[in-house]
């Protein structure tokens, strides 16, 4: 099959074009580094199928970043049949810099001029025919976002295959032209493929090239020493070549661009004006925190815009005559959109649960089997499922922030803060991905140059609460509000997210000053202009999230529910636990179950965290749920769902299947306190992540250091949860924790000074040698 490679600058629209060509739904990000490795798909609309390879975004073919090495190696070693170079028409000069390098390869090539529609909106125009003539390559105007002209692009690419192409360089007329020609001849004699490209790189003193062709590199250097007169770059041939390329682009290619009016450097674009406020030195971060709170409020609040006191009449009407509106639109006040959807789904899942119970009862099913289906399976699955609307609403807002270009700005703003903690703003990108899922986030760290910085980042990624942890956060915070009447669900959820970020930053600070010492690597990134998010892209993100949440609910969670139900309904001698009668109803005697005995065994471990031995006889459920969370985080709430029916007589007996009601049952049945519940959330958020994330971390960090990572997660989660519980339950313990923090800080400072001295000495010795 034919193989075409998509190459271009970051944010030029490669992945969007890849999706348009292959019909894929690959994640399109609005910051560089979203595509870390190459990705393949098939274009099937033409006469013959074509394999399309989406390469990571690069600015050059020099080996500065892992992305550049991946793209360069692919084009040189795998020899695609054609390279489609995507050029962002709104940044023509800078994008063509890469084009001038790709042109030096002996491979058929087509230039896809993307975003010309945006250019036209500004009133600017590119003379495509003139550009095509001057570059000497087919140039096709496309709009990857709208899918316009992509088939024409493929036709031109297929046509380009018919004529084998020799590389050409825009540097031949420059001062380094003869040196390049000499090196090219030498490489041709050695029958090296793409000799012109390698020759330019040799003259550039490219590290990979010098290593591969040392003799030719020495010859090129000697030639330059003898022949290069008027060397304004003091022997820095790389800078000289970059300068020559830009000069050529400005003189020959940029003239094809006609601007409606001359760009004024004093005049600010709309994006610049927005950035003056949104990325302001002092106001930027508070604005970000306010935006995040607004998102959490829109998703989780039961008192939307705090209108509860203004709209009591509406609440009264909902409570008495509202019909379906009762309990859906009004709780403490007007519900937020996320809560309205949550309540609507809860109504549906509860009705299904009731229908199942009545149906099985009517058919005369065995009560044990009926319990398994209704309480065990449906109770557990529905408890998790009930949070799907809120998860989707939250991720819709996150996707909007990402697609508009705001998240890239946040990385830029946080660079200043992160640097103080020993990591660059580059680390923020995988961390943001961690809010969705830790697995791709950990893999995304591959683009980080410093290995120690990367390892430290991988370790803290699980602290950024992922989608799977959201049901725990929502159910427990909702449970706290309902059972104790304190706080707001949105404030508690938001605070827990912030707690995760704070713990991540402190952990980074400690690691970068002890086990992972080192300076933060430089961070340069291009900020995309603000734009309206693409509807299709947003819907694709949501569809993907919903599809996988549902798949997981009806696979892993379902199997877990069956196992939990079995363990909580049977004894070690394989006998059913039997029933106890309370208020005329029969309930399974869970206290005699296998799960209860295991739970009671591990329960003391969690005593310092507030959900151990201090709870009453049913307290083991929290210990069991915490351990089950290691399989999949949703299992925590699924366990509550499956066990709620058994513990209901000791608490509130409701018919709702939603996770919040199940937590209320657990609270009333175990006597757990608010600090212990907050500690429970903290433990689940910070401890060892799910199996998949653990496997990803092992792959990224390596076997040897992974065991320390596991210990790190256990230690941090245990410590933070203990602090949360003790401070919440016994305020005076704040003094103890402050003293511990001061002693730790002093210890780290002393260790750092000692290490600096030691490293200074060894550097001196090395220098003397």
């Amino acid at each position, binding site marked *: 099959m034919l193989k075409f490679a998509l190459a271009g600058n970051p944010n030029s629209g490669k992945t969007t074009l890849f999706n348009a060509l292959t019909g894929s739904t*690959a994640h399109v990000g609005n910051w560089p580094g979203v595509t*870390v490795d190459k990705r393949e798909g098939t274009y099937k609309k033409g006469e013959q199928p074509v394999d399309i390879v989406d390469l990571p975004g690069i600015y050059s073919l020099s080996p500065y970043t892992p992305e550049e090495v991946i793209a360069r190696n692919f084009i040189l070693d795998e020899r695609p049949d054609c390279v489609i170079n995507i050029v962002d028409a709104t940044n023509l000069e800078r994008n063509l810099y890469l084009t001038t390098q790709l042109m030096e390869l002996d491979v058929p090539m087509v230039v896809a001029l993307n975003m010309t529609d945006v250019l036209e909106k500004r009133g600017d125009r590119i003379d495509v025919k003139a550009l095509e003539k001057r570059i000497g390559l087919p140039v096709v105007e496309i709009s990857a976002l709208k899918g316009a002209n992509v088939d024409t692009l493929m036709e031109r690419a297929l046509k380009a295959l018919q004529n084998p192409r020799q590389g050409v360089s825009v540097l031949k007329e420059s001062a380094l032209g003869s040196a390049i020609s000499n090196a090219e001849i030498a490489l041709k004699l050695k029958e090296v493929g793409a000799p012109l490209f390698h020759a330019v790189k040799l003259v550039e003193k490219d590290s990979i090239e010098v290593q591969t062709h040392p003799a030719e590199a020495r010859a090129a250097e000697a030639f330059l020493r003898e022949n290069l007169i008027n060397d304004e770059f003091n022997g820095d041939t790389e800078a000289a070549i970059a300068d020559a390329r830009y000069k050529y682009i400005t003189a020959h290619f940029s003239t094809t661009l006609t601007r409606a009016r001359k760009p004024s450097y004093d005049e600010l674009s709309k994006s610049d004006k927005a950035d003056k406020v949104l990325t302001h030195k002092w106001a930027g971060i508070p604005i970000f925190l306010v935006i995040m709170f607004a998102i959490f409020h829109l998703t989780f609040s039961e008192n939307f815009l705090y209108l509860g006191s203004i709209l009591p009449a509406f609440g009264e009407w909902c409570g008495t005559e509202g019909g379906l509106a009762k309990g859906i639109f009004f709780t403490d006040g007007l519900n937020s959109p996320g809560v309205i959807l949550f309540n609507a789904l809860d109504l549906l899942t509860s009705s299904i649960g009731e229908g199942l119970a009545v149906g099985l009862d009517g058919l005369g*099913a065995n009560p044990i089997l009926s319990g398994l289906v209704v309480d065990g399976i449906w109770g557990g699955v529905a408890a998790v499922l009930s949070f799907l609307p809120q998860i989707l609403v939250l991720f819709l807002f996150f996707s909007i922030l990402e697609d508009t270009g705001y998240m890239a700005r946040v990385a830029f703003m946080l660079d200043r803060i992160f640097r103080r903690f020993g990591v660059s703003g580059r680390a923020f990108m995988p961390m943001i991905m961690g809010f969705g899922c830790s697995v791709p986030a950990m893999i*995304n760290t591959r683009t980080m140059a410093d290995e120690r910085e990367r390892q430290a980042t991988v370790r803290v990624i699980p602290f950024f609460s*992922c989608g799977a942890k959201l049901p725990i956060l929502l159910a427990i915070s909702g449970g706290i509000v309902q059972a104790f009447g304190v706080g707001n669900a949105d404030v508690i959820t938001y605070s827990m997210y912030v707690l995760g970020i704070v713990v991540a930053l402190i952990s980074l600070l400690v690691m970068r000053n002890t086990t992972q010492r080192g300076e933060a690597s430089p961070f340069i990134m291009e900020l995309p202009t603000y734009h309206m998010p693409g509807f299709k892209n947003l819907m694709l*993100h949501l569809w993907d999230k919903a599809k*996988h949440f549902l798949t997981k609910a009806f696979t892993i969670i379902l199997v877990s529910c069956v196992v939990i139900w079995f363990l909580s309904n049977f004894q070690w001698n394989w006998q059913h636990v039997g029933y106890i009668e309370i208020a005329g109803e029969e309930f399974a005697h869970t206290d005699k179950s296998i799960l209860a005995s295991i739970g009671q065994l591990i329960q003391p471990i969690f005593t310092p965290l507030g959900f151990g031995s201090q709870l009453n006889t049913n307290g083991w459920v929290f210990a069991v749920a915490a351990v089950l969370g290691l399989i999949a985080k949703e299992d925590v709430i699924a366990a509550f769902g499956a066990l709620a029916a058994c513990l209901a007589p000791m608490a509130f007996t409701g018919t709702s299947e939603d996770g919040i009601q199940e937590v209320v049952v657990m609270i009333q049945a175990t006597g757990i306190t608010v600090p212990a519940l907050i500690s429970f959330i903290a433990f689940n958020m910070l401890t060892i992540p799910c199996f998949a994330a653990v496997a990803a971390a092992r792959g990224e960090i390596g076997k040897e250091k992974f065991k320390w990572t596991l210990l790190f997660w256990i230690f941090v989660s245990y410590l933070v949860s203990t602090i949360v519980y003790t401070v919440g339950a016994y305020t005076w313990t704040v003094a103890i924790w402050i003293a511990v923090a001061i002693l730790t800080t002093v210890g780290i400072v002393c260790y750092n000074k000692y290490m600096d001295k030691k490293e200074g000495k060894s550097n001196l010795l090395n220098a003397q040698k």
Partner: protein
Amino acid sequence: MKPIDYVIIALLTIGLVGVVVYLIRQKKKGKSGCGCGCSGCPHADVCGSAKNTQEEEE
């Protein structure tokens, strides 16, 4: 045991076996049980291929 009990047991067994088979197949394809789902992940191809390469090397 009534006939409905046998029907419930049969349906549950089929369902559970189906789920377990599905999970094993996904695992073999290199797709883990994480909440994010592979196709939505920007490194969807990397996970599977990296694993396969490792296996080949071994």
